[in-house]
């Protein structure tokens, strides 16, 4: 450790704190990623590391939150978990948690989902969980991961057995997600939907909206009207033009 420069030492420290790995592993990961912290995390988490989580501890954790009558964690349990983690239940990091768990629907976790998620994150105690929070927040900054999380959110947020997502839930999710990834038009989008659409949102519209936010600039200068955008998005563009929100490519 003494042979390393200060910045590298800091990184090793950070790595160990966040992942809970040993110094040896930390060095290995950071060297493999050329001392890039993000890359080191990727490297670390792509390794099989089930051995790092103790199943008994996981059981204990699970039992703390599980519902007394069913073998699942329900809304109350989740609220408790959020309290323990000192995060708001509406906090977007809970979405990331659910994503890791591959949870099928919001407000409940099966035992399997809980175990899968926590093991993937290398968590078997509340302390470790707390430590992981900042890492999970950082995942949202990654473009690829954000897209996966965004698309995951659709299936997760909609009601079981429905094909589409209810409008209010969708709007709530969008406001949450686009607070993270800044999109200037998100408010207009939500207003437009409430004024003109009033129906559930299809999966296609949901996923294409992200592409729209990503690729089309807020002044709509590179928007292709003849393109294959979902018709709802076409209507949104019309709405923006009609209401003078976008004028001659100015915004």
């Amino acid at each position, binding site marked *: 450790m003494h042979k390393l420069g200060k910045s590298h030492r800091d990184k090793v420290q950070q790595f160990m704190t966040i992942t809970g790995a040993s110094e040896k592993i930390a060095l290995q990961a950071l060297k493999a990623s050329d001392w890039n912290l993000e890359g080191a995390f990727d490297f670390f988490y792509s390794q099989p590391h089930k051995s790092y989580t103790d199943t008994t501890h996981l059981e204990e954790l699970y039992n703390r939150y599980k519902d007394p009558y069913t073998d699942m964690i329900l809304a109350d349990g989740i609220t408790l978990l959020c309290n323990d983690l000192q995060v708001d239940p509406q906090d977007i990091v809970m979405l990331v948690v659910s994503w890791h768990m591959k949870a099928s629907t919001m407000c409940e976790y099966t035992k399997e989902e809980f175990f899968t998620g926590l093991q993937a994150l290398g968590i078997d105690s509340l302390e470790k969980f707390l430590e992981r929070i900042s890492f999970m927040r950082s995942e949202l900054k990654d473009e690829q991961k954000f897209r996966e999380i965004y698309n995951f959110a659709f299936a997760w947020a909609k009601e079981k057995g429905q094909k589409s997502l209810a409008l209010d839930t969708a709007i709530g999710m969008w406001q949450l997600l686009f607070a993270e990834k800044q999109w200037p038009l998100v408010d207009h989008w939500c207003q437009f939907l409430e004024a003109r659409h009033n129906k559930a949102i299809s*999966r*296609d519209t949901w996923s*294409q909206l992200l592409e729209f936010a990503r690729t089309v600039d807020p002044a709509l200068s590179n928007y292709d009207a003849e*393109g*294959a955008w*979902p*018709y709802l998005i*076409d209507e949104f563009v019309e709405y923006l033009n009609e209401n003078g929100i976008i004028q001659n490519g100015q915004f």
Partner: protein
Amino acid sequence: MESKTIDFERGWDHVYKGIKQLRRILEGLPEPLFTSGEYVMLYSTVYNMCARNPPHNYSQQLYDKYREVLEEYITSTLSPSLRGKRDEFLLRELVKIWVNHKVMVRWLSRFFNYLDRYFVDYRSLPALNEVGMTCFTDLVYREVQTNIKDAAIVLIGKEREGDRIDCSLLKNVLDIFVAVGMGSMERYEDDFEADMLRDTGAYYSRKASSWIEEDSCPEYMLKCEECLKKERDRVFHYLRSSSEVKLIEKVQHELLVTYIDRLLEKEHSGCRALLRDDKADDLSRMYRLYCKIPRGLDPVADIFKQHVTAEGTALVQAIGAASNAPGVQEHVLLRKIIELHCKYMAYVTDCFQNHNLFCNALKDAFKVFCNNTGTDSSSAELLATFCDDILKKGGSEKLSDEAIEETLENAVKLLAYINDRDLFAEFYRKKLARRLLFDRSANDDHERSVLSKLKQQCGEQFTSKMEGMVTDITLSRENHAAFEDYLRSNSAAHPGIDLTVTILTTGFWPSYKPCNLNLPTEMIKCVEVFKGFYETKTKHKKLTWIYSLGTCNLSGMFDQKTIELVVSTHQAAVLMLFNTSDRLSYSEIMDQLNSTHEDLVRLLHSLSCAKYKILSKQPDTKTISRSDYFEFNSKFTNKLRRIKIPLPPVDEKKKIVEDVDKDRRYAIDAAIVRVMKTRKVLGYQQLVSECVEQLSQTFKPDIKAIKKQIEDLITREFLERDEENPNTFKYLA
């Protein structure tokens, strides 16, 4: 022939004498022609000098002498006569010496023929007449070729200006150019034709630039036609036929291509003006002139299209602005559109020889204004109403059978230009139903003929339902005869009222609202009796009764006299209520009848507020309100013994449009699936255009509607977007 060797000097001496004799003949001196004996001698001498073994074989020397003789002849006799001569004189002289030369060569070749047979081939040397040609070319042609060419071109120029020239002279001169080419047209083309074409171009360019200023379009075109004809004559008279194509192209380029825009766009006489003033001859000429030029007709077709579009649009707007009663003006509009169509179709057939460009121009033009009627009703509806008018009894026109057929035929043709063909079908079907059910059809043959015309134009599927409807009516008549037999044999079953039932096959007819009207007992009995009869015929089918389409004849026992009232079944049901009650309130009628408010208001209005007041209403206002009371108006009378009380039909327009929209969604859905099933993977733009193509026979689909269906299919998991490229779709089996 004696086989003996011969001394060269002696042999040549003999031959040379013959040559001198030949020259004297050619000069026109009094010299006897060769006898065949003399000819044979000369031939033999040559033979003897050549058909020998060396050293007595003088073939080479003779071959050389042949050339020498010719060259000498040319330089001493022929060429000098050309010198100092110019223009036409030069040409004449040239032809003369050419003729002489040819004769000389011919005779010499005959004398020296033996060389041609063996020596020439053996040594791969040019044949004798070739040698002759080469001598002429080298010694004569080369010297004078430029002057000849210029002189010839000058002559042609004179002829163009109207002078008469010696055509055969020119022809002969040009023959020389060709002959000099010795089998190839190179000399003719390079030494004469190229400059001739250039000169032609310059000539017509000058002419065109002044004509285009001074002449009107028809005048100019006439001149063009004449010039082209004259140039063709020129080819026929003296130019070579291989020049024709190049010559005509040159002339066309200078006269027609260069000035095409100025010509067509001439303000008072150009293409637009000709169309406006119906100048069929001039337009035909225009077509004739430009059809041979590549892309020459494009601007003409364009102007034609613009003109027709403008006329059509003006027509639509004029009628829209007129303040006639709505039904009338729409009828007039269609009439006028048909007239316009006939007029310009005639142009396409007569002036423009049915050329594709013009057929399409007409089609495109009509498509523009035929879909934009500027009224509330779509053009599909107007056309259906128009046909209905002609086909129904008492329609607005009293036409002969032929006139009707012709009008209907023209109307059907218009259908090709209307985008919403499926909407037309729906309106037509609805109106056909009314005509058939209320016996308003004027003529069965016309009905069938229209259907077959529609089938021809739009395909079998378009008319299959309508044909079913017509068949149903025929079958119903037969059925009715059977019903009457049934009643005769079961007199107890007779309901006491004359009853006719028309059976409609559900799929063919427009959908009708089912109604739960409470019928008067007399009618209920009728229904039961018929049901009984029907069950004897078939047990597999279910009858649903649509009273709204029925008619009823009632006897109204008024104070003054009994009048027969022809009313709808619903109206009859209302009136029959007054058999048991003198006075009824709106709500009482409502309860007893079990009708809807909408229907009841209409019914009561027709019986109490319209032309014939069969019921009297309190209060005696013009509209029906729910607090009104009604009584049988016994004081009613009319000079007629039988009156029809009309019930204005509900406006079905909205429903029809809705139904068609729904059908379109299914059609679009099916089209998308069909396309994707075949293609498996397809880009968005292509998918849309293929769908539009598939549906174009029936209607012009809205792009947005197609997009919505695509998304619907994605939700239903028939399609998915490609991950890499969201503009591409994949078919999910």
